[in-house]
């Protein structure tokens, strides 16, 4: 019996489709490359909008890149609001089970 070889890509036991589609995402350079790609694509999209779909700027919403900037800050706001909200609203898993007074439970 031959000794099991370490696969070139992926991990032992990893599904071949995962190796093909996703294993490269685990490379150390992936996050930086992806982030920079997003920046480049985003700027290009704003440029393309200004070029291909320019409208007279009657309000800020008509400015090229408005939706991009809005999307960035809306996303960041939603995520960052998770910090105070989590502190305010998160309770232990059995919160309702212990003292809820609901059906079948003792106070």
């Amino acid at each position, binding site marked *: 019996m031959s000794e099991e070889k370490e696969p070139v890509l*992926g*991990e032992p*036991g*990893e*599904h071949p*489709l*995962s190796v093909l*589609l*996703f294993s490269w*995402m685990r490379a150390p350079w992936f*996050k930086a490359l*992806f*982030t920079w790609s*997003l*920046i480049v*694509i*985003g700027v290009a*999209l704003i440029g*393309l*909008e200004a070029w*291909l*779909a320019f*409208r007279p700027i009657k309000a800020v919403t008509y400015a090229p*890149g*408005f*939706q*991009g*900037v*809005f*999307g*960035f*800050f*809306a*996303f*960041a706001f*939603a*995520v*960052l*609001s*998770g*910090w105070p*909200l*989590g502190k305010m*609203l*998160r*309770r*232990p*898993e*059995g*919160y*309702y089970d212990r*003292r*809820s*007074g*609901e*059906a*079948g*439970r*003792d*106070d």
Partner: protein
Amino acid sequence: MTIERLADLLANTNPGFFILAAALLLPFARDVASRAILMVGGPLVALVALISAEGLSINLQTVQFLGLELVLYRPDSLSFVFGLAFIIASALVGAYSLHRRDALQDSTAMLYAGAGVTAVFVGDLISLFIAWELTAIASVFQILAPRGPESARAALRYLVFQIASGMLVLAGICMYVAATGDTQFALIAPSQAGLPVGVMDINAPGAVLILAGFGIKAAFPMVHNWLQDSYPRASETGAVVLSVFTTKLAVYALARYFAGLEWLIWIGAVMTVFPVFFAVIENDLRKVLAYSLNNQVGFMVCAVGIGTQLAVNGAAAHAFAHIMYKALLFMSMGAVLYRTGTTKASELGGLHRTMPWTTLFCLVGAASISALPLFSGFVAKSMVMSASHADPALFVVWIALLFASAGVLEHSGIKIPYFCFFSHDSGKRPQEAPFNMLLAMGAAAALCILVGLSPGWLYQFLPYQEAAMEYLATDLWTAGHVLQQFQLLVFATLAFMLLQWRRWYPAEKPGLIMDVEWFWRRGWPVMARAVGKRARKAGRVVSGAIGAVGGSAQLAARQVFGPEGWVAANVPLSATAVLSLAILGVVLAISLFA
């Protein structure tokens, strides 16, 4: 039976009846093949029936019942698109459920699906109510299916909301019918220029009650929590079927009766925004999807409220697309639950290694719900966004919807696939999902892509076909429209990457997130005890007798309804469901004979 008679039967029978018939036969199916024939074949027969319908906007099947003419089958261009989505989803759910045999759950799921399809194709309020209540009763069994104490209690709470909704609708119908004598859609909601969508006057007797009943089913703000409470407690298959019918049936009913009602614009806008914040901090990914469902239904409710042809088309298209991609997302989480036993983000991560097909299908669902161009969400949601943008008076609403669009990307587009399949490695190496699950997910994913690539296919079924085709030809694929949507998604994803890099993205933590359910699960009992205590004291001071009566009544009420009372503790849920059904039946009978 001759071919002609069979064709006639198919053309003139409510398609939901074929699924209901399959549901009744299902408990007798012993092997996988016969179950597959019933669970997938039933919806396929319904699809053939729908396609061969003898005509639109005419009564194809009627019966006389207690002196009323019930219209059992009246397809029109509004019901067609909802019915088509329901039937396709029924077949997908049937295929998805084939890996395990649970006769009760399977047959009630089919019953639920059949009742949902029946409800959209009936042509009068009484029939709608009956089919609607059948969905409520059948759906409870999906939550009960895990057969644990938590799911049992959640099912009971769910049932309370569903029955309350049914009671409101029933009371509204009785008042409306008593005042106007009309029960048929064609009479109540006269078409505008021959189109199917009409308006029930909100000032008409009973209309507000009917709206409130629909609102509970649509999970309007403050009565939304039954959804997040119950859906994540259902089985892996139950959550999928639940995600398809109840809320979309409510959207259909709202579009049928209340299109153009301004209240709905604002209710819908609120619905799109608030779930975003809960979804960010929620750890259970199926609960995240439940909040996401709330948010997506908000888009539809808002569109119904706007009420223009473009907006109603948008609501219907969004409902169709949403049924497919939300079912797909629930299916992928169901597969994860089935293989790992959990859907908590804090316990998952790295599953793409051994579940790549599920990951891939989940990513298609995530792209669709995020409205990435070339996926179904984009071609559907665009109409809602355009309809709100077209009216300067709705600027705030448009901004709210835009915010919600970024929020959707956060909770369903990124959070669900990232924390489940990527993120940190949880060390879990589960098997890939069973073949039947993959098949159903693959079919749903294919539909998401098909609709995204070829929106004309969906647009031809929309209530206002001409307006839809005009939108397709002149607006949908304009450079500005597509580029702006790409910008929103690219920059929001960039925000995610930067927040992750700076470690500002809140970590997924185990815990329970309080929502309005706190009021009835903690606040209400505490308040009741406090009020009771004060009432007893006051009673003793003012009058010993009154206090004693009050105390006795409270004691009796506690014995019945309290934590250890017979209603709360030891009554089998099936008995409760049957009792509720019986009460409904009695009230209905009294109302009709009175």
